[in-house]
């Protein structure tokens, strides 16, 4: 239990510290491809500190939903962060690690965010909530099938066990992992509101989804929402990294191990963030009703993986 306490403290602090970096890095990458210099890599940290110092403005229409959502959101995200070890894999705990619980913690955060979008009575908020829940309804079967495939490939539903296993194997001898990583990448793009699904930089009513829901948030509430979005991105990146390229992730805590793991994770995260930035720069935003086609690709890849595994064992 002592090691688990150490894990939860370290992992949580690391997630909180590293998440804003990846957000800035993607922005920076996109800026470079557009021929701009872009904001500093510390910009997201500054933004959160600045927002914390500002007063909170509530709409006169809003209720307690608006007031509790930022706190619930970051809480669900931090709870979910325990499921994705970024530095070292702790000893098994009966409550932590179930891949299904991980997914539904993310869904719970989304549920309250969508309610908060409706709370102020603004048309934008309602539009954002409506679109977000639509996208979520279509992407969730894909996520579940992808996660079921992961459970199938690794023969376990515990994420910590999956990562332990993926540490021991190489993708070269495990082609299903490569296939499923493509699906995980699409999920990462969709769930973090990136182009072609959503555009995190826009405030144009026709295109925004995630931004529309948090339009009425301000001050420390907005800071919490931004931070939890950043954490969500890190978690999904961490999931992909730990499955596809887990090298460096420590099996047990130790000063050297954790040092190496920190350096390795930041490096892998930087690479993935740049890939995401480049991907975002190379595609155009899709129409809302065209998106199910994108999701079907991830769905298809997951099903191919299942068939692959079934054939493997015949």
């Amino acid at each position: 239990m002592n090691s688990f306490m150490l894990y939860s403290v370290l992992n949580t602090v690391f997630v909180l510290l590293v998440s804003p970096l990846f957000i800035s890095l993607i922005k920076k990458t996109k800026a470079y491809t557009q021929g701009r210099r872009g904001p500093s890599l510390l910009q997201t940290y500054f933004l959160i500190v600045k927002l914390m110092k500002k007063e909170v403005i509530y709409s006169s229409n809003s209720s307690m939903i608006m007031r509790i959502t930022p706190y619930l959101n970051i809480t669900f995200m931090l709870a979910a962060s325990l499921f994705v070890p970024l530095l070292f894999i702790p000893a098994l705990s009966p409550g932590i690690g179930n891949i299904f619980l991980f997914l539904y913690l993310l869904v719970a955060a989304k549920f309250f965010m969508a309610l908060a979008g409706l709370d102020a009575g603004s048309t934008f908020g309602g539009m954002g909530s409506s679109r977000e829940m639509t996208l979520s309804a279509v992407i969730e079967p894909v996520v579940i099938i992808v996660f079921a495939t992961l459970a199938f490939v690794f023969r376990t539903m515990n994420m910590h066990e999956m990562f332990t296993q993926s540490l021991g194997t190489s993708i070269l001898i495990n082609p299903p992992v490569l296939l499923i990583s493509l699906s995980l990448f699409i999920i990462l793009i969709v769930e973090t509101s990136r182009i072609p699904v959503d555009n995190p930089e826009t405030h144009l009513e026709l295109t925004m989804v995630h931004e529309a829901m948090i339009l009425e948030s301000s001050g420390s509430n907005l800071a919490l929402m931004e931070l939890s979005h950043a954490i969500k991105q890190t978690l999904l990146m961490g999931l992909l990294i730990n499955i596809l390229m887990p090298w460096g992730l420590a099996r047990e805590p130790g000063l050297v191990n954790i040092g190496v793991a920190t350096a390795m994770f930041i490096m892998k995260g930087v690479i993935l963030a740049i890939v995401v930035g480049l991907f975002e720069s190379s595609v155009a935003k899709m129409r809302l009703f065209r998106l199910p086609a994108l999701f079907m690709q991830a769905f298809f890849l997951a099903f191919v993986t299942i068939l692959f595994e079934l054939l493997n064992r015949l």
Partner: protein
Amino acid sequence: MTLNTVFFSGLAIFIIALLVPLPFVRRSIKGINRISQWLHILANMLFIFLSLFLLITGQSLQTTLYQIIPSAGFSFVIDRLAAFLIFTISIVSLCAGIYSLTYEKSAPENKKCLMASLTSFFVLSMLLVVASKNTFSLLFFWETMSISSFFLVMFDHEQKLTQKSGLFYFIMTQMSTVFLLFAFLAMYSATGSFDIQPVSGISSGMKALLFLCLFIGFGIKAGVMPFHKWLPYAHSASPSNISALMSGVMIKVAIYGILRFVLFTLGPELWWGILILVFGSVSALLGVVYALKEHDLKKLLAYHSIENIGIILLGVGLYIIFQSFNLPDLALLALAGGLFHTLNHALFKSLLFLTAGSVVHATGTRNIEEMGGLIKRMPVTGMLFLVGAVSISALPPFNGFVSELMIFQAFFRSFQVGEPFVVVFLFVALAMFALTSALAAACFVKAFGTVFLALPRSKEAEKANEVSMPMLIGPAILAVLCVVLGIFSFQIISYAGYDLATPDLLTVGVFIAIFLVLTMVTVVLTGNRKSRISETWGCGLTSQNSRMEYTASGFSEPILTIFRPIYRTSKLSQRSFSDKTESIFRNGAGQIKTFKLFEERIYMPVAGFIQRLSSKIADSQDVDLDTHILYAFITIVVLLAIAWWVL
């Protein structure tokens, strides 16, 4: 011995509660229904106590009330499964009973007496269906359950819509009885006894026929698609406390029938499991898809009942499939998931129906487009509804999540099944189930958002007030149970003696609490603590009104567009113009029509056929006496011929 005493005193109190108001239906005395209601609550408490005792100690209770003929009579046995269902029924009836104390306050006294009496009759019948030891007594109480609930649905019988709903319900419920009657008689002829016991030594064709009859018979009552059509009608027409009972527990009694007869009396075969799984998936998905387009709050909840019955059937179907592949661990997990969902759905659905009843009571409408902003006017009801909404959307750490998790886990581990085709089939069913679960969350964001958040959309919603204390206490008990059964699920399941490898939600719950406190402390210490109230940003408009808000139809529009093939929505528009080039618009009309697949393609053709057939038969009855005597003669000859051929 003492257990029997508790059982019989429970029965006795129910019967007193049933009889006391009856003499006063014509000439009522104020408050007589109160006596009946309190007795009802007391009797439910006794049954909760009894069933909990039986569940914890693992004992079973056997008793006989009245033996009509040696082979048939009213005998009861309460084993663990029955005790579980009895616990579910009585806990929901208890809370609905508390809620009813002040609900329908404005109804006339004699109606209130009738309602109190019928409610006791209804709950008693449900309890005895579950406790029945033989098919004779089961079918008897099944019928009293149907009849009492029919009268309760017809509570507002002055309204046209209620009459239609009641009639629809009555016909469907009688159809269910016909199928059950046939199955039970066939079972009697096979075993020579009315007792519910494993049937053996019948041909597989007969067994298949029996299964289909039982499945259709119980399926109609459970609201399995395509036999579900009565459910949204009856649930929305009846008073909310009755809807809570019908949706929360009556359809679970049908699930009990499926479990008892299909799983434990007939030995199930693989294709039964697949059939049940297909019906379950379709009910779950279409239930929620239809719920999404529904703007009548109670109909919306009714469609969600169909969805959740589908989810329970997924557990049952998986159990049969895993059993036939000899995977007892997985089978147990699936069945436990289905059973736990039975209890959970009973809790959160009756919670939702009761709070929805309060909302309807306060606003006087069932249309969610005319509500809004109610969380500020009815804060407690709003919070209780939110608990129900979070539970039904299967969000952790609430109870709905746990049971769906168990079924999901059973699906996830289905790769252990040896047959690749079955594995692929199960993964397809899994995808449908996942879609269902996601759409349910979307639907409840819509429902909670439109009913409780933003600005009120009508004068009635503006003037709504919080309901009285009993109407809050009843749902509040259910809400507490939803949370407790979620967070402590792991401990409860372990205590019951099962190891199902579900995650311990208490750990996550503790972490959530720690993180919540830490975040709040951090924000208070480092953040700016000032806050002020201002207008919602309206693109420069100075005052905002409710017409600018997102509506429920607007909210579900993108989903409706994506699932257009299911809804078969057609948009009709008529326009006329003042000039030839059609550029100056004069007037026009637009309409969005959703195709009612089941009503137009299944129910109406069948009804039409029966109508034509019966008009033909009616023609042959309109004749003189001689012909009637001829009919009687022919009948006797035919009967004699059949008897001669059979014997």
